[in-house]
């Protein structure tokens, strides 16, 4: 116990004297950033799955083209899952000689399991919330249908052969599927009426959705039980996996944050290792004395490691608290992208950062600390006796295994862990060698330089390893910051540049054929710039050369997305403007039965010229032969299509028209007039969507930068640690130089050179690396044009040099202020 008291006393003395300040700071940064990220990702995960459950309408959904086996429902019951099901299909409705393709949804009594329905009971009616769908014999309609079919509430509507009483207008359903263009107006009815409609014949295109909710464990169990029994046309979706668009962006950001926090941990770890190295070296003498006084090696080790454990516990606790606050900040930055209420955090995540702190301390501080164990008692007499350096495998092995564990925790994926680690290690080695080469080069050139420059650069070369770590730490942090800064700006710029000033900013969907002429005239009268009007038939690609498409795609590919929803099918006589023919020929004569396929989709599905494609529209099927492959640009803000047919192919099906047009800010009020005049038409304001996209991107990058500030701080701690490692030596040398007549100006100038070269080097390296990565990213992944940003090439190294000089010179200020007398006192 008295030993422990001694340890505590020594610790107290050392931390009071500032010996441990850097170590504590580095630890605080590592712990607070990892706590923040752990809490953030956990709360984000659970918030997102809550939301996703609502969007799915359930925790788990089976989609199937036919009713599923009764055994599946029994199994669900046994697991105490509550189930509901809906049946969805398209049907043409005819009333008062008007005809429209509607999307019918027949629901079971328990629907909706998650979320609510919103309805309105009058024309201008207020919305109200209900928790059950329509009763048997009644139907709820999209407001659009009422106006098109000239119906009002209380009328009857025939769905197939079954007349239904129209009782309510439906305005919201939680599990609405599909993209912007798939809004066929909704008819919601009870599934007890389904048989009577007579629509569900074998071969008709119907989707069954079986929805389940229950305990998380039971859901997982059910899913695992189900998976091997699914046939290729059936899918199971889980609120934890199948997420809406926004959350996939958040998800990616979360992963990126996780990886950046590893960066922080790594840099902080380097700082910890350096600070411990200095701590160790300063304790050689005291240790030798203790050994002389009879302490055993084991006891020495215990004495120091118990100090570090106490230090780690305290710093980690404080760091966790700081991390909690930081995480609140992260959610604040992202507040507009997230639901109002955020799921609470669990104790486990709160402890994660704490554990990381202890582990990082162990991983990075232990190897240098072990040297103290080896201090020889003889050192009391012969000061030059230094204990061996720690074994290389120990230093790097411990750090690497630690970092890989943390990467695994963020990725949950062995392959990704290995590749992130591999890429990381390789780039560290390459960069390290590069910096070493540069330093060697400087060393060679040193002879010809003036005294001042030699003194300055020698400061950099004196401690090669420390200089390399400093430059690495700063360049990597800068690269990460530059990347996140550039990517956001360039994506937004690229969008804005590519869109001509008067690019369409509105889409009009569901224009009826007889309205097209009116629309065109209105546009002309109001001087509205519009694109072409394209007819649209909603249909689904089902087979390629008589083989079901499901068998041709890999999961989550572009093709996979395209075959699980209705596509907008169109026809034109001539090739649309922004399209380019890549293979085959455009039809010249009236030649029904041909189709031109978009290039990327064709690649993803393996569609070739001459293939026969089968489509279903409503319950009918038709075939078309692939006559050409087109490439097109999706970001033109004009209607674009995967499938363009030759005129005449789609004549048998009801169609609506789509167009896009440009409204200047001053013309916005025309929108109201249009909406009033054409109530059945859906108008999308693209600028709102663009604005949302921009906010999304901005906030995500803000969140990422938030973390990179931690990395930057860690970088400065590395700088300070490196400065302190050499501080004693610097003071002696500075005093000696001044004894020989060097004035302070010279010494200060030399320091300035040392630190600005350090900053300049890491800045230039960072710019080089980030531009390389950006170039690869833009040309290979994002497909936007790469512009070198020259001003950054200048600014970043310059700014970095200034910042590092300031901090560095401040760190070594003692060198100038300690009187040279010191040197005579023999230290």
């Amino acid at each position: 116990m008295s030993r422990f008291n001694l340890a505590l006393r020594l610790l107290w003395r050392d931390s009071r004297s500032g010996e441990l300040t850097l170590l504590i700071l580095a630890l605080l940064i590592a712990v607070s950033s990892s706590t923040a990220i752990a809490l953030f990702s956990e709360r984000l995960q659970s918030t997102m799955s809550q939301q996703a459950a609502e969007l799915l309408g359930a925790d788990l959904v089976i989609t199937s083209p036919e009713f599923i086996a009764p055994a599946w429902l029994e199994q669900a019951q046994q697991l105490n899952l509550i189930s509901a099901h809906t049946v969805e299909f398209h049907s043409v409705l005819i009333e008062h000689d008007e005809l429209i393709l509607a999307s019918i949804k027949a629901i079971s009594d328990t629907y909706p399991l998650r979320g609510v329905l919103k309805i309105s009971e009058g024309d201008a009616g207020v919305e109200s919330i209900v928790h059950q769908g329509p009763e048997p014999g009644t139907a709820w309609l999209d407001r659009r249908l009422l106006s098109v079919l000239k119906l009002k509430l209380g009328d009857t509507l025939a769905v197939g052969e079954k007349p239904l009483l129209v009782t309510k207008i439906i305005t919201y359903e939680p599990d609405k599927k599909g993209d912007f263009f798939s809004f066929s107006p909704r008819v919601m009815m009870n599934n007890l009426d389904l048989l009577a409609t007579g629509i569900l014949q074998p071969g008709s295109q119907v989707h069954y959705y079986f929805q389940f909710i229950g305990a998380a464990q039971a859901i997982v169990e059910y899913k695992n039980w189900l998976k091997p029994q699914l046939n290729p046309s059936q899918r199971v979706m889980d609120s934890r996996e199948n997420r809406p668009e926004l959350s996939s962006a958040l998800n990616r950001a979360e992963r990126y944050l996780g990886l950046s926090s590893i960066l922080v941990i790594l840099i902080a770890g380097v700082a910890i290792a350096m600070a411990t190295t200095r701590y160790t070296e300063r304790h050689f003498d005291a240790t030798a004395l203790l050994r002389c006084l009879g302490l055993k090696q084991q006891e020495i080790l215990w004495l120091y490691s118990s100090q570090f454990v106490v230090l780690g516990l305290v710093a980690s606790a404080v760091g966790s608290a700081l991390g909690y606050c930081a995480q609140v900040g992260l959610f604040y930055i992202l507040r507009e992208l997230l639901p109002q209420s955020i799921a609470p955090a669990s104790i486990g995540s709160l402890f994660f950062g704490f554990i990381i702190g202890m582990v990082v301390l162990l991983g990075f501080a232990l190897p240098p600390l072990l040297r103290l164990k080896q201090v020889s008692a003889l050192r009391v007499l012969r000061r030059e006796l230094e204990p061996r350096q720690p074994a290389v495998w120990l230093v790097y092995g411990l750090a690497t295994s630690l970092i890989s564990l943390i990467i695994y925790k963020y990725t949950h994926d062995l392959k990704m862990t290995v590749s992130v680690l591999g890429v990381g290690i390789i780039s560290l080695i390459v960069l390290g060698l590069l910096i070493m080469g540069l330093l060697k080069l400087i060393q060679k050139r040193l002879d010809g330089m003036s005294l001042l420059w030699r003194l300055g650069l020698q400061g950099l070369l004196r401690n090669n390893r420390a200089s390399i770590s400093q430059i690495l730490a700063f360049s990597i942090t800068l690269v990460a910051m530059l990347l996140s800064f550039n990517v956001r700006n360039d994506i937004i710029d690229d969008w804005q540049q590519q869109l001509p000033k008067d690019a369409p900013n509105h889409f009009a969907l569901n224009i009826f054929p007889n309205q097209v002429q009116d629309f065109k005239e209105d546009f002309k009268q109001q001087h509205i710039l519009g694109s072409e009007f394209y007819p649209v038939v909603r249909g689904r690609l089902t087979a390629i050369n008589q083989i079901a498409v499901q068998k041709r795609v890999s999961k989550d590919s572009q093709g996979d997305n395209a075959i699980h929803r209705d596509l907008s099918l169109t026809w034109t006589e001539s090739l649309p403007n922004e399209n380019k023919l890549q293979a085959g020929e455009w039809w010249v004569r009236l030649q029904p039965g041909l189709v031109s396929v978009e290039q990327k989709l064709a690649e993803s599905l393996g569609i070739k010229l001459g293939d026969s494609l089968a489509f279903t529209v409503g319950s009918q099927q038709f075939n078309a032969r692939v006559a050409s492959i087109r490439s097109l640009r999706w970001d033109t803000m004009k209607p674009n299509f995967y499938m363009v047919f030759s005129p005449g192919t789609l004549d048998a099906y009801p169609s609506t028209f789509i167009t896009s047009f440009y409204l200047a800010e001053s013309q916005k009020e025309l929108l109201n007039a249009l909406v009033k005049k054409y109530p059945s038409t859906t108008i999308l304001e693209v600028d709102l969507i663009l604005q949302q996209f921009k906010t999304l991107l901005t906030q995500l990058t803000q969140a990422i930068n938030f973390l990179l500030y931690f990395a930057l701080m860690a970088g400065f701690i590395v700088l300070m640690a490196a400065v302190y490692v050499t501080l004693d030596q610097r003071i002696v040398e500075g005093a000696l130089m001044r004894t020989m007549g060097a004035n302070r100006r010279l010494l200060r100038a030399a320091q300035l050179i040392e630190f600005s070269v350090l900053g300049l080097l890491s800045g230039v390296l960072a710019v080089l690396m980030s531009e390389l990565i950006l170039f690869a990213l833009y040309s290979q992944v994002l497909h936007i044009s790469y512009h070198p940003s020259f001003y950054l090439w200048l600014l970043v190294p310059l700014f970095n040099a200034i910042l590092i000089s300031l901090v560095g010179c401040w760190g070594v200020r003692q060198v100038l202020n300690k009187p040279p007398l010191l040197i005579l006192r023999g230290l």
Partner: protein
Amino acid sequence: MKTQINQVTNSVIVTEGLAKSVLTSEGVLHILSSIDLIIKSGESIAIVGESGSGKSTLISLLAGLDKPSSGAIFLNGKSITMMDEDGRAALRNQLIGFVFQSFQLLPGLTALENVMLPLELRGDKTAKAAATALLHRVGLAQRLTHAPKQLSGGEQQRVALARAFVTRPAILFADEPTGNLDSKTGANIIELLFELNQENRTTLILVTHDHALAARCHRTIRLEAGCLV
């Protein structure tokens, strides 16, 4: 009055009522008090005294490494008590050479670079030639590019001697230059020190515990508890 000014102008070092005291936790500690010294050009002086008597403190004041609490110091007729730290640094560079007990070579520089350093600090363009010549003179012609770590203690002290003499200083301060060496090596260093001293007509101020060595100097000054005796 006239004689005193004469003495001041003919002498390299003159001190008047020199005193040094420091504030410690136990109160004011008087390290040196009322030291009056006149050292003529070309003289060699040994400072002796018990450990803790203030020898190192005295030469650090004489060399302008520290400021006295009271009294005045004139080097070559100029009062250094009025100068600031950088002014004294410049004066040191012009006038003074040092040899220390623990050699004090810069570990990052080679033997040659260590010797060149004081000349380079002056902006002397012939630094390399002069330094090489002096290293030849001290018998280290073969070791020019060696780092201090690669040299023995005696060799390091010879490099330090070369560094001290390379600027042809008017005054050389040596604080127990053989304290870290065995007696034979020490004797060699002392030989070299006196030879170089004679060649350069340097004023030598030597702190030592060795009576034989003190006897070789023109004069011996004894310090006892911070006072001249």
